[in-house]
């Protein structure tokens, strides 16, 4: 089968850069609109929980942040695998671009989890399997970024940090299944692909809208950061010069 679009064209930073620049504002706008809608549903429309009262409204931040913290790590590990296998620069740049956003969502998941734990479980923190493995995830993101920053040659940094990210990926199934494998203080999954949701429809709707907002935000911010990384790493190359010339011509 032949397609009219050659997707491999976008594997080069020079051709991906304009695409990232064009797409980022659309994802950012979608994220902002969905976040506003999600907060409206979560704070004004969704009913009070029968057991937890209003404290449960933390769910609209906590669950999307926790999902993104794990999902971004998997995407980062995917790009690391591509960059190690095919030795492509852009894949490594994408992984580099995702790490700070993953760390941010992991921090938010831990923070909101602590603030939710205090009123419902009576403690901000416990060394149970879910929380401990999520904290390890935060350290994996920090370790990945620290290792990158410690190596001057970007291509060596790509390879070393990719190996670290791939080894650390083992932590993701541990986080996800921790509530099944161990008897944790943290509750089991409220939403799964195999069973009907156990929460009210409006609560679920608010949570899913917030999850999509987080998703679009992550794409938008990664597309912005990757532009900075591309310009840093490809500075003074011929294509950047040509791009600069075209910008100058347009002015």
């Amino acid at each position, binding site marked *: 089968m032949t397609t009219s679009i050659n997707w491999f064209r976008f594997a080069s930073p020079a051709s991906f850069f304009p695409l990232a620049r064009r797409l980022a504002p659309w994802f950012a706008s979608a994220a902002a609109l969905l976040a506003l809608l999600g907060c409206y549903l979560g704070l004004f429309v969704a009913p009070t929980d029968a057991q937890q009262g209003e404290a449960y409204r933390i769910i609209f931040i906590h669950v999307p942040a926790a999902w993104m913290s794990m999902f971004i790590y998997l995407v980062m590990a995917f790009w690391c695998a591509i960059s190690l296998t095919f030795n492509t620069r852009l894949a490594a740049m994408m992984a580099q671009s995702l790490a700070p956003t993953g760390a*941010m969502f992991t921090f938010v998941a831990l923070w909101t989890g602590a603030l939710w734990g205090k*009123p419902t479980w009576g403690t901000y923190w416990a060394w149970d399997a879910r929380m401990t493995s999520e904290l390890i995830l935060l350290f994996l993101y920090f370790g990945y970024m620290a290792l990158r920053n410690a190596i001057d040659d970007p291509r060596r940094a790509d390879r070393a940090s990719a190996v670290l990210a791939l080894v650390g990926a083992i932590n993701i199934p541990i986080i996800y299944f921790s509530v099944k494998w161990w008897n944790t203080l943290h509750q089991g999954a409220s939403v799964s692909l195999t069973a009907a949701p156990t929460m009210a429809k409006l609560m679920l709707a608010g949570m899913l809208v917030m999850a999509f907002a987080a998703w679009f*935000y992550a794409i938008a911010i990664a597309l912005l950061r990757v532009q900075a990384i591309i310009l840093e790493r490809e*500075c003074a190359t011929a294509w*950047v010069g040509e791009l600069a010339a075209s910008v100058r011509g347009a002015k």
Partner: protein
Amino acid sequence: MSAGDFLAMGGYGFYVWGSYIVAVVAIAIEVVAVRAHLNAARRMPGNEELR
């Protein structure tokens, strides 16, 4: 429901708003940092014209 009731969140205001505000601040910090990063990259030698 009054604005005061809304802010009180049934007595859980500290926990609920502590979550929402910190999440908004974390995102705001990241957006500001990425914009600064992009502007710094555009100022690098050979990239100046991209500003």
